[in-house]
């Protein structure tokens, strides 16, 4: 039995079909795996590698480059506090310090109950409402220490479940329509590309 759920696998296969090269689906599929597990479990990495035609090491090699892809477990809620210049000028480090005290962890740490992981984030592009933060990549702006406590209380009590889904930036993204059913077009594109590569390698070579 596979580690990734049938739903994730079905959506992952659909993603692979969208691109002229299957490897392009790697990062989107990693997001789907995190939707299920919160992070990239080794079992998931192996299955993703199979789907896109790579080795697990290659998948890990790509995934480890990106801040949003986690190679270690994270809490149910990932609290990312922006401390970059625009937020810093409006009190982000005071907010971060408050968050550390409230949650009892340093950036990178996870609370003992497994609910919260705290992150010191780079600019989240919501500077009009600085200081800002994201919880599982959903925005909260103009965050005072009091507002922060309220967000944490609400999350803990499950009052923000509709605004803040669990992990996965694609959790509410569903593609409807489009030409994806046209497997033939993709196949033709891939074939044409391979042909030209072969030509370039065979005919155009000789310079080495």
């Amino acid at each position, binding site marked *: 039995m596979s580690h990734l759920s049938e739903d994730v696998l079905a959506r992952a296969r659909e993603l692979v079909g*969208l*691109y*002229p*090269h299957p*490897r*392009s*689906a*790697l*990062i*989107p599929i*990693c*997001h789907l795996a995190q939707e299920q597990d919160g992070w990239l479990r080794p079992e998931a990495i192996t299955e993703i590698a199979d789907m*896109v035609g790579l080795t697990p090491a290659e998948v890990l*090699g*790509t*995934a480890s*480059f*990106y*801040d*949003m*892809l986690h190679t270690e477990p994270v809490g149910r809620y990932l609290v990312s506090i922006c*401390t*970059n*210049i*625009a937020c*810093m*000028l*409006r009190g982000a480090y005071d907010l971060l310090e408050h968050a550390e005290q409230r949650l009892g962890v340093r950036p990178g740490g996870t609370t003992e109950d497994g609910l919260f992981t705290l992150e010191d984030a*780079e*600019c*989240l*592009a*919501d*500077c*009009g*409402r*600085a200081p800002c933060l*994201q919880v*599982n*990549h*959903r*925005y909260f702006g103009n965050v005072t220490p009091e507002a922060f406590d309220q967000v944490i209380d609400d999350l803990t009590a499950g009052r923000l479940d509709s605004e803040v889904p669990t992990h996965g*930036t*694609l*959790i*509410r*993204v*569903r*593609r*409807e*329509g*489009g*030409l*994806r059913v046209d497997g033939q*077009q993709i196949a033709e*594109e891939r074939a*044409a*590309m391979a042909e030209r*590569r072969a030509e370039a390698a065979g005919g155009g070579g000789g310079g080495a």
Partner: protein
Amino acid sequence: MAITEPPKILTSRLAFEDSHRLERYLATGGYQGLRKALAMTPEQVAAEVDAASLLGRGGAGFPAGRKWSMLRKGPIPYLVVNGDESEPATFKDHVLVERDPHQLVEGVVIAAYALQVARAFIYLRGEFALGLERVQGALNEAYAHGALGRDIFGSGFSLDIVVHPGAGAYICGEETALLESLEGKRGFPRIKPPYFPAAIGLYGEPTVVNNVETMSNLPWIISNGAAAFTALGEGRSTGTRLFALAGHVRNPGVYELEMVKTTFRDLIYAPVLGGGILHGRELKALIPGGVSAPWLGPEHLDVPLGQDEVAACDTMLGSGSIVAMDDHTCVVRAAWRITHFFWRESCGQCTPCREGGGWLEKILRRIEGGAGREEDLDLLMDACDNIAPGVSWPPQQTTICVLGPSIPSSIASAIRMFRDEFLLHVKEGACPHG
């Protein structure tokens, strides 16, 4: 300089709660530009965009029409939209993808038609969870409406658009790194030349990469004509632009303003715009175009917001984001935070950026913490010189991409403008701002 009544090219629908829905879009002239474009030849559409002199809104400001004209004729060209908005203090594309995704989609279809591209990708930064939902939602509605997919509006032109999430890496805003990322790899910028992916881009095929805001201008340009667009602004800076104002101002936010007709002073102090510096304080310095840009001082407040006008001050309008810093700001700390960002986001391919960034960050942290030495100032400038020889603007490059050479901007600015403040940190062994 008076503030002209801002023409709304990009932000006309933002007052509506449902600005992201097809119904609202159609009720406000949506997809009329596309219908008009499809009645023209692709060459005519491209010529119209070229005539509008639309400068790319991503940061480099390269004319979109010229980028298009470089596209190598090939059997499978691609169009890629850069929505990896990560330049600190830049948040205009965030607004466009969440609040008016159909405008973006229509722009992409128009561009794809002009370029005769059958497949386009919209790369959005992964942190835009709502943006990804909204753009996919708009694509779904556009497919159902016939504005996208097979035989668009009965024209015989077909296009598929895939929205692609990034995963948190500033460097992927660099267009060749973005293509690597889109291919499922680490976001390593590619070695130049070729300088543009128009010859060798996605999967090695000819590719045009344009910014979200650039694309979002196209429906208006085609609907109203290039002449109406060039009637706005001045010189090379035509049309309007989204300016993202952040930092110590009363009303931070995204403002659409006619190019060149507004100054930094207007943007920061006008009651209908920035509303002045917070708590009635004085402006100390401003960052004019994203944190890669050298800083300006209060003496530059009357410089107009135009590409060439700002470039004349040895800095850049860049991504159109402006950060205001008040007179209580510790400039050493500000320079440290920006350097910390670049160091953290360096992809690690080139030594000057990977190592130099870390050195600079460490020295700045030492000075800010009160453990600095007087010779640290020369050391900082020397390390900067090793990353971008001459520490001039635009920077000389020792690296594959411009991330590394952008690091000296804030450091050199802060030292040149506020040398005494650096020395005060050293002499007092502490930050004078507490």
